[in-house]
Each structure stands twice: as structure tokens, then as C-alpha cells.
């Protein structure tokens, strides 16, 4: 199977800090990849480079065979790679429905500002699409609440639902369960992952909780000090002694518990 996303020798430095280095990997379509690593290991930096928020200091990124290295984030989104954020990024003063309209409207239109000044935002199509997305991510009952008032979990779901509005082929989730209580984490991941499965989206998600990674990932990338130290099936990676020392700790639940 050919890779939908390929990364070669990716590196990012901030002055003297090396945030990511020597990252090379291929992700086949529809795979679900878990990304683990201690705080500061470079997970977000990796996601940021792929989605165009940071441009790599070195290396290249291919999406469906096309070089997307260094393109602006909006272009990458329009090409089909979308993302959610470690701290949910929504429009706080709008309601959930309005957030979804905005996302749907932006995703639908042509990439010309003039065209966008001529099409109304609340077209029936955008509305239907927004309703369907809210249904899919089970946030319909919050539809009239302003995003600023949402509970953390719902805000995370909204963030992801907005990222999915553009029908991406690859979705990167940066810590979808951060800031959420242990009891709720699994429920949230169930909702997200089954929604993404129905849309046949290739997923890369960053996660500190090893149990969640073990449950949802087909494959795990273990980040340590900016680079990937293990890249295999979840069981194998979690049993890897280096991963146990550097990431999961001697007690496997340690890291996740600390982070929550």
C-alpha cells in the first residue's frame, strides 16, 4: 500500500533547541497512528510542521505524493490535512452551531476572497452539513451554547468536529484528551474514533495515556528528545525497554496520570 503521508529527515530547531530531528516515516491511508512521548519530546512540533504552522528547518513532507513542505497552513488544510489542537481552538463568542457554520462555510467555498464575499454564510447546505457534524460528534444538545461556556470535553469535540468539516483525508489530533478526567477520556475517544472511521480518515493522534493508545492505535510512534525511538505495533512499542524508561515510566500509567 502506498503512503498517504511521507516524512523524510524532518528537523526543526529553535535557536539552539533541537525540537525535532531525523524523523522519517510513511503512513498508509486509513491507518490510526498513536504518538507518545514525554512533555517537550517534540510531538506538537511534529504536528505543527506537517500542518504548516511551523516550517521545518530541514527535510520534506509528502502528501499523496506531492511535496507540501513549508506551505502555509490554510493551503495544507485545503489540500486535505486537518488538525485539532492541544488547547482547543474554537470561536468563543459564537455558539456551537455558528462555530460549525463557519467551519463548513470556509471548507465549502472556492479559495477566492471575492467569491467568499459574494456567497452567503448560512446556506442550507452549510447548515445541513453543520447539523450532521454535530450529530456525528454528539454535541447537538449544546448547539445553542456559546463556545466559551462549554465544558472542556465538549470544546475538544467541537474543535475536532470543525477540523473534520473540510472532509480531510488526514487528521492530526494533538492530545484530544488533554484536560479531561480519566473517566471521560475513553468515551470521548470512542466518539471521535468511530466518527473518523465512518469517514475513512487517516488519523495521527498524540496521547499521553498508554491505555488509550493501546486501545485505539494501529501503530505507535514513540518520541524522545525530538526523534522517533520506536515505531511499531502498540504492544511491541509499549514493551520496548527504552520506551518504558523514557516515556511510560516503570509504572505504565504514570505519565498519563501526571498529565491529566
Amino acid at each position, binding site marked *: 500500500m502506498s503512503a498517504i503521508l511521507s516524512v523524510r529527515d524532518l528537523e526543526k530547531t529553535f535557536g539552539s533547541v533541537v525540537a525535532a530531528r531525523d524523523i522519517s516515516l510513511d503512513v498508509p491511508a486509513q491507518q490510526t497512528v498513536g504518538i507518545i512521548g514525554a512533555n517537550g519530546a517534540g510531538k*506538537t512540533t511534529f504536528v*505543527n510542521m506537517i500542518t504548516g*504552522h511551523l516550517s521545518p528547518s530541514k527535510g520534506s513532507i509528502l502528501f499523496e505524493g506531492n511535496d507540501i513542505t513549508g506551505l502555509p497552513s490554510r493551503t495544507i488544510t485545503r489540500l486535505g490535512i486537518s488538525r485539532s*489542537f*492541544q*488547547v482547543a*481552538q474554537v470561536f468563543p463568542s459564537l455558539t456551537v452551531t455558528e462555530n460549525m457554520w463557519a467551519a463548513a462555510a470556509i471548507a465549502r467555498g472556492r479559495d477566492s476572497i471575492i467569491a467568499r464575499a459574494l456567497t452567503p454564510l448560512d446556506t442550507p447546505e452549510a447548515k445541513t452539513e453543520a447539523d450532521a457534524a454535530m450529530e456525528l460528534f454528539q454535541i447537538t444538545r449544546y448547539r445553542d451554547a456559546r463556545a466559551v461556556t462549554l465544558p472542556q470535553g465538549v470544546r475538544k469535540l467541537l474543535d475536532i468536529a470543525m477540523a473534520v468539516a473540510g472532509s480531510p483525508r488526514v487528521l492530526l489530533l494533538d492530545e484530544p484528551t488533554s484536560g479531561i478526567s480519566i473517566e471521560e477520556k475513553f468515551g470521548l475517544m470512542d466518539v471521535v474514533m468511530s466518527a473518523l472511521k465512518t469517514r475513512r480518515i487517516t488519523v495521527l493522534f498524540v496521547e499521553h495515556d498508554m491505555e488509550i493508545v493501546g486501545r485505539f492505535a494501529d501503530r505507535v510512534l514513540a518520541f524522545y528528545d525530538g526523534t522517533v525511538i520506536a515505531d511499531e505495533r502498540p504492544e511491541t512499542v509499549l514493551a520496548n525497554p527504552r520506551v518504558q524508561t523514557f516515556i511510560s515510566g516503570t509504572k505504565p500509567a504514570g505519565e498519563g496520570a501526571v498529565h491529566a
Partner: protein
Amino acid sequence: MLTAFAIFSDGLVYAAYLFLVAVGLTLIFGVMKILNVTHGSFYAFGAYGAATAAGVWFDRGWSDAGGLLFMVGLAMLIGLAIGIVLERGILRFVYGKDEVVIVLVTYAVFLILEDVIVLVWGPRSYAAYQPMVAAGSIDVGDLTLSNYDIGMVVLAAALAAFGYWALKFTRYGKLLTVVIFDREVAAAYGINVKVIYTVTFLIGAMLGALGGAVMAPKISVTLGIGVEVIVLAFAVVAIGGMGSIEGALIGALIVGFGRAAAVHLVPQVELFVIYAVMALVLGFRPHGLFTQPAPRKI
């Protein structure tokens, strides 16, 4: 050759003036993230205060040096008083609001203070040329330099050096540096950010008034002098980078020499060369020469 020297000396004097009016503005912005439009009012009040002081002092025929001190002293006292009223009475209620909203608040206060000037001093202009005359001048080659101007350059240089020293080596300066770097961190370390804000604003206010007092002998103190100064000081500060003292100094030098060169070589562009330089600098360095924008972490 003569032109080059004239450009140099005029540029230096103008730069000194710009630094004097810009330093208070950049200090307040650096620490409080407030673009303080009332800075123009402090300048104007300083100039009017100094002119009044000059009237009182020199009418009695007292000594010249003392007169200048009295002018500066009274001006800074007025700056302090208005600063206290403003900071305690209005600004502290809007801390934490949008930067743009705070600019509008200071703009509103500026408008009010413009009319207060008319109420206090009336619409006529004042002159306070005595110190300028008393200081005399020296001839350098074919050029005549006013000693007062030289004094102004020295004052600006001294102020820059003092500011540098105060920020680097005094307790208050170090606290300021922490607050400038990150107010939340500063608060977390137990620094009383509120007190720092108040003190900084008052220092900024007095610096603005000082600028006005020093300029009073050189200009006709009249309505609307504050307006011009704010716009100029903004430009200088933006070129150097908002909130940076070195930035204000470099910005003042660039603008000072730029304008002097324009005056001597292409007088038609004199009025807007400053803004053109500003637009040019910002075109290449969006946040000025001396500040780096912090990329937003996500």
C-alpha cells in the same frame, strides 16, 4: 561638507528631542502594553507649565540656571499630578482590556485634556525663550550651534545611559525587566505588578512633561502641540520596536538624521519622511527593529 556637518548636528539635536518625547511612551508600552495617547497631553502640560514657571521666575529677574530648574521641576510636578489622577482615576479600571480599547480610552482622555489646557491657559500662546537666550551659542567653523541644543543632546544621552543603567542594575529595573518579560510569571513570583504599573506610569508621565519643559524655550507654546508630539513619538517608537529603550534611541537617531537630511537636501519631503521611514522599516521588520514577535504557541 558644511551641509554634511549641518545634517549631522541638526540630526543629533532633532534625535535628542525625539528621544526625550518618545522614551516615556516606550517605557509605558513596554511595561504596561498601553499605547498611551495622553503622552501628548503630558508633553503639552509640561510645556505650558514650564512657560508659566518661566514667566513667574524671569519676571522677577532671578538667575537663569535656577529658572530652568524651576521650569523643569514645575512641569514634572504637573506631569506627576495628572499621571496620578489618570492612573488611579481611570486606567486602573481598564487594565486587562483589549489593547485597542485602552488606546481609545487614552485618546478620550487626551481630547478632554486638550480642552482643559484651554480652560487653564486660554487660547493664547506662550514663550519661554529666556533659557535659550541665556545659554548663548558657539561657532564651529561657519556654523553656529546653540548651547541649549547641545545641552539637550547631553540630557538625552544622559537619560539613555541612566535608563540603561537603571534597568540593568537597580532593583526596580530588574523587577521591571521581569514584568516586561511576562506579567503572569512576575505576579507568580510575588512581584506586586500593580505597584510597578503605577510607578511606571508616573515615571512615564513625568518624562513626557520633561520633554515638554525642555522644548518650551525652543517653541511657541500653543494649542495643539500635544497632537504633533504623539504622532511623532509613535513613529519613533514603532521604528525602534515598541517598548524597547534602545529601540527608542535608535528610532530617534534614524528619524532625526533622516529628517535633517531631508530638510537640507529635499525639503519637499520633510513633513512625511518620518512616516515613510516608518512604513519602510515596518514593511521589512513588522515589529520594529528591536523587538521579535513571539510566535503564538499552539
